[in-house]
């Protein structure tokens, strides 16, 4: 019986404490002893170690036996997973919103004091959001893992599941339908933007290299307006519209990349601001710093937004093309 005892202890090591480990061990020992006794009777001899060994080999590895009592050893099981996801999303959103506000306030106050590296502040802000999200997700996972293991009856019905009614599907827009309001707003703002750019590009602050890009920027704005009118008329996104959107946004991104790779192209210089009187209270050097950092941040934001637009268009195209 020595081997059976050791075997049962091994099985116990793989069982969760809360599942009545001692009870399971007792029952398993009793069963194995019954089986051994029956085997000895059949073979007409006393049970010995080799018989025990044969029985235990047939019964399976301790880990496998323990798994049968806990077949789904989830860290966070399906019972509480929807709640876990909801809490995680709220946590991430809260952290991102809170720390973004902190970073913006820091940027504004540092601009006033004029002796900090703004790019560093923005990058630090992103870094803080990332590390805070990582740390918070660790705590959330740990909390839910403890609930999963030690509170087997815990369950909260998420309101959305209870209230869900198929009637809301009828109110949802069709997957590829266009949002007319968005399109009209985009057309209006693009036209206003074009007029503004037309005025801005006449100011003597841009380099010749940059001015060579201007016709491309204007052409892309017109392409965007043409696509918006087409979508207004068509009412739904088509493969061709998605491809056109991807091409336009890719070209836009290429222009932003060109400017980012050669910041001096757009970078405002002392020469460009030479029309400001020398006895002005404005400190030219610091003003240039602020303008250049603002341009840099704006271009990064534009790049991100364009990447999101391309992602949405690629996803839409994939949904149209995928086999039904």
């Amino acid at each position, binding site marked *: 019986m020595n081997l059976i005892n050791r075997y049962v202890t091994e099985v116990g090591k793989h069982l969760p404490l809360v599942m*009545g480990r001692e*009870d*399971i061990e*007792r*029952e*398993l020992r*009793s*069963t194995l*002893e*019954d*089986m051994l006794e029956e085997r000895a009777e059949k073979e007409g001899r006393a049970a010995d170690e080799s018989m025990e060994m044969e029985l235990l080999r047939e*019964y*399976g590895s301790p880990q*496998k*036996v323990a798994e*049968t*009592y806990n*077949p789904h050893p989830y860290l966070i099981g399906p019972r509480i997973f929807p709640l876990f996801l909801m809490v995680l999303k709220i946590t991430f959103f809260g952290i991102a919103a809170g720390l973004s506000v902190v970073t913006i306030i820091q940027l504004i106050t540092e601009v006033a004091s004029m002796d900090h590296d703004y790019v560093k502040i923005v990058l630090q802000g992103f870094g803080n959001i990332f590390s805070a999200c990582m740390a918070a997700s660790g705590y959330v996972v740990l909390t839910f893992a403890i609930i999963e293991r030690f509170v087997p009856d815990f369950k909260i019905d998420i309101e959305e599941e209870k209230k869900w009614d198929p009637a809301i599907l009828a109110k949802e827009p069709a997957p590829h339908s266009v949002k007319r309001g968005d399109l009209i707003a985009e057309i209006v703002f693009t036209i206003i933007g074009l007029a503004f750019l037309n005025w801005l590009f006449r100011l003597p602050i841009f380099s010749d290299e940059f001015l060579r890009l201007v016709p491309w920027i204007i052409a892309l704005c017109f392409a965007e307006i043409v696509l918006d009118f087409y979508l207004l008329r068509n009412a739904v996104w088509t493969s061709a519209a998605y491809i056109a959107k991807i091409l336009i946004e890719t070209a836009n991104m290429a222009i932003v990349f060109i400017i980012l790779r050669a910041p001096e192209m757009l970078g405002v210089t002392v020469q460009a601001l030479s029309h400001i009187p020398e006895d002005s209270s404005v400190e030219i050097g610091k003003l240039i710093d602020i303008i250049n950092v603002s341009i840099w941040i704006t271009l990064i934001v534009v790049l991100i937004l364009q990447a999101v637009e391309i992602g949405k268009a690629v996803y839409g195209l994939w949904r149209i093309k995928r086999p039904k």
Partner: protein
Amino acid sequence: MTNTESLENVVLELRRGVIVLAALSQLGTEQYGYSLLKQLSDQGLEVDQGTLYPLLRRLEAQGLLESVWKLEEARPRRYYIISAEGKKLLPKLKKEWSSIISVMDKILAK
């Protein structure tokens, strides 16, 4: 996955639901796990220990079985018996089983 493995998996799924009904039906009189296993086997239903013991614990947790430890031949054994709740459920399960059989017979006859 080979055809044999697929067959084994499907058969396993089919039997899983049946074992609950088989176990409940046999526990009108109290039995310990191994004796129940042999009783089912004698009637042609082979059940793996790794399936039966966790199932008995689950049914007890659901209130369909009751259990008690008894000392027999110097060996402690856990005896299971159907609970009042289980007794109420069993006829309904039997009826459901009959209905499944008749529906499946019709489906498979076509």
